[in-house]
């Protein structure tokens, strides 16, 4: 089990109800972490209901949901970006 900072932005943050939290997980990949979070409570299940509508960054770099969590300290979940 390792400790990871998990951050939420935009409507993911609003749906889950907090901007960040410290999570203890044994998940090997992002998808594994998502499954653990979604199983927690309805608000998490709602936020992670459609993975295709989400993006993920590992230690502030965009990544895929099948990426490994090895050595990662910060995971962020958010909708597709709308800058510019």
């Amino acid at each position, binding site marked *: 089990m390792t400790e990871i900072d998990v*951050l939420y*932005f*935009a*409507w993911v*943050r609003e749906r889950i109800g907090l901007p960040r939290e410290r999570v203890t997980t044994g998940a090997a990949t992002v998808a594994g972490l998502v499954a653990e979070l979604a199983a927690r409570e309805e608000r998490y299940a709602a936020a992670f209901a459609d993975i295709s509508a989400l993006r993920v*960054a590992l230690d*502030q*770099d*965009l990544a895929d949901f099948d990426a490994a969590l090895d050595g990662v300290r910060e995971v*962020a979940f*958010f*909708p*597709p*970006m*709308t*800058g*510019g």
Partner: protein
Amino acid sequence: MRVAVQAEPFDYGAESAAFAAAAEGAGAVVTFLGVVRDNGGALRAMEIEHYPGMTEKAIAGIVEEAAGRWPLTDALVIHRHGRLAPGEAIMMVATASRHRAAAFAAADFLMDYLKSRAPFWKKEIGSDGAEWVAAKDEDEAALGRW
């Protein structure tokens, strides 16, 4: 090359003038300015959320990518976050190069990538509630041009 992510307004005219004055050896300067549209009076404000730390890093990476593709003598990106009123400037990009084609292409490229690859999220505050702006398929598709 300068990247600024800030809540404060910026002075578009002064930034453009300073960028052009510093663009030694460049024959061509292109700037882009993004402004909050009022959507026919329906918009009260635009809230821009971002991911502090990742934002600067992501923009610097996009600028670096542009500088690798075109012979730029300079580039500038300023992007605001926080609450903006209709008519306010959201962001600007400037590129300088010896020739106009490179300056145009690099500015266009920077905009496409900032739109879909820099961690900003826009929320429109209207008279009848607030709504997150959805990413457009065409914005993602635009990346395929490069």
